[in-house]
C-alpha cells in the first residue's frame, strides 16, 4: 500500500518523533473518559507547576465527511470542543483540544501535551497516564470487535436442485 492509501493509518503523522508522541497523547486523552484521565493523573503524585496561557474555553468545530466516503469534502455537522493551553515549569507549552464541554478534560490534555515535551516528565507521563489509557482503550476496542464478530453471519442463497430420478 502506498502513502496515499486511506487505509494506511496515521496519514497525517508528521515526520518528527516528538510530534508523533504528542499526537498519541492527544488521541489517548481525548478518547478516554475525563474521569479515567483524572484518576490516572491523581496517581501521579507530583505534577508540574502550571501557568495558564489563555482561558480554557468551549467552541465548535465543523465535522467534515467525504462524498461516498472518499470523495469531495462536505460539512456534516458540528462538535463542541473544549480547548486549553498551559505552560509548565521549564517552559514547555501544552495545548489541549478535546470533544465535549469539559474544561478539566481539555486542561489535562494540555498538561499532558506540555509534559511529553519535557525530558523531566515524559517518562512518568507515559507510565502512569498514557500506557494505562492505551491499555483501557485497547480493551474497549477489542471487546466491541469481539461482540461484532459474534454477530457475523453467512447468508446463503438457496439453490434449487432437482433430485435425480
Amino acid at each position, binding site marked *: 500500500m502506498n502513502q496515499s492509501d*486511506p*487505509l494506511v*493509518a496515521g496519514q*497525517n503523522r*508528521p515526520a518528527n518523533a516528538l*510530534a508523533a508522541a*504528542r*499526537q498519541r497523547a*492527544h*488521541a489517548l486523552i*481525548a*478518547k478516554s473518559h475525563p474521569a479515567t484521565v483524572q484518576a490516572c493523573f491523581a496517581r501521579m503524585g507530583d505534577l508540574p507547576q502550571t501557568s495558564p496561557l489563555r482561558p480554557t474555553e*468551549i*467552541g*465548535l*468545530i*465543523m*465535522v*467534515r*465527511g*467525504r*462524498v*461516498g*466516503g*472518499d*470523495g*469531495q*469534502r*462536505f*460539512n*456534516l*455537522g*458540528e*462538535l*463542541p*470542543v473544549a*480547548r486549553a*493551553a498551559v505552560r509548565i515549569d521549564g517552559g514547555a507549552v501544552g*495545548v489541549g*483540544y*478535546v*470533544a*465535549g*464541554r469539559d474544561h478539566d478534560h481539555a486542561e489535562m490534555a494540555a498538561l499532558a501535551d506540555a509534559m511529553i515535551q519535557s525530558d523531566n516528565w515524559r517518562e512518568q507521563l507515559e507510565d502512569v497516564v498514557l500506557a494505562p489509557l492505551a491499555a483501557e482503550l485497547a480493551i474497549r*476496542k*477489542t*471487546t*466491541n*470487535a*469481539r*461482540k*461484532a*464478530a*459474534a*454477530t*457475523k*453471519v*453467512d447468508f*446463503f*442463497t438457496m439453490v434449487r436442485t432437482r433430485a435425480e430420478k
Partner: protein
Amino acid sequence: MAYVSVKGGERAISNAHQWLDEARRGDCGVGEIGVDQIREQLALAVDRVMMEGSCYDRDLAAMAIKQARGDVTEAIFLLRAYRTTLARFGASEPIETQKMDVLRRVSAAFKDIPGGQILGPTFDYTHRLIDFDETEAAKAPLAEDSIDRVIPTIGHVLGHESLLEPAPPEDENTAEPYDLTREPMAFPATRDQRLQALARGDEGFLLSLAYASQRGWGNTHPLCGEIRLGEVAVELVPEELGFAIEVGEITVTECQMISNFEGSADRPPQFTRGYGLSFGHNERKAMSMAIVDRALRHAEVGETPAHAVQDEEFVLYHSDNVEASGFVQHLKLPHYVDFQAELQFVRRLRKEWFAARENPSTIAEAAE
C-alpha cells in the same frame, strides 16, 4: 402581512410556562428521569437530535429531549439554538469512514463482501413485538476472535473494475466546502451543499421522499450496497500545533446506495452511488439520505426530472424541520391585525356578492 407584535399577557404566559414545567415533570410519585438515563437508554432519540440539531453532544441532546418532554423536533430546535452561542474553532479533517471501528456492517447487494456481514446491535430480524416481560438486559456474547481491524468499503471492493462510479474528487476551484451555517441556500446546489442540508434534514421528510422515489415518484431503484455503523476519530489541525490531532471519537452511520445506470454517450454503463452519512446510529436516516442524494443527481446521469424528489429547490427548501416547524407553527401566534383586515375584505366581498345577486344588472353595468 405577517403577524404584528402584541403587548400584554405577561402573567398568563408566565403561568403557562410554570404549568408546562409541572406537566413536564409528570406524576411526582414517579421518579424523575435523569439526563444520563436518557443518554444511555434513549440513545437513538439522542442520535437523531444530535444530527438534526447539527451538534454532536450526547449530554446536551439528552438534556434537550428531557426539557422538550420527548418532543424530538422541539429538542432539535433547542440544540440548534445552543450551537449559535458558541464560537467556531475550525473545521475537522474529513472523517475517514474506511478506517471506522466497525460495530455493524451489512451489504444487501454483495453476499460475500470482504470483511463479512456483521449484524451488530440491530432491530433487524426482531419480531417487533412488545415484550411484556421486561427482564434484565442480556449481555452481548463475545466471539473468540475480533472482526478485521479494517473492513474495506464497497468502493474498494468494486471500484477497481469501474463497475461502480468513483466518488467525485475534490473540486480544485473551491477552497472550502459549502457551509449552510455561513452561507444562504443557493441554486443550483452543489453536492456538498446538498449533503449538508440532507444531513441536517428532517428524517421523516427524507424517509417519505425516499419511499415515494422507490414507489415510482422518482427514478431510484437502488440496492443497499453497504451500511456501516461504528466509531471514527475526529482530527483537527489546531493553528498552534500545525499538525493533526484526534480530538475524540464519534459514532456515525454510513450508507452507500447503488443504482444501475444504463450508460450514455459519455459514460459507460455502471452502478451509480447515492451517499448517506449521519451522526450516531440512524440507518433510516442514512438510507433515506442516500436515496434522495442519488435522486437529486439526475442531471449527471441524463435522467429527466419529473418528480418532487428530483427537484432540489423543493427538497432543500423544505427539509429543515426547525424552519418548517417554525413557519407552520407561527400561525398559532397572534395574527389579529391580519384577521381584522381579512375580515373587512371578506365582508365587503359578501356585500358585493349579495348585491349582485339581487340586482344582476349592477354588475353588468359596473363591468361596462
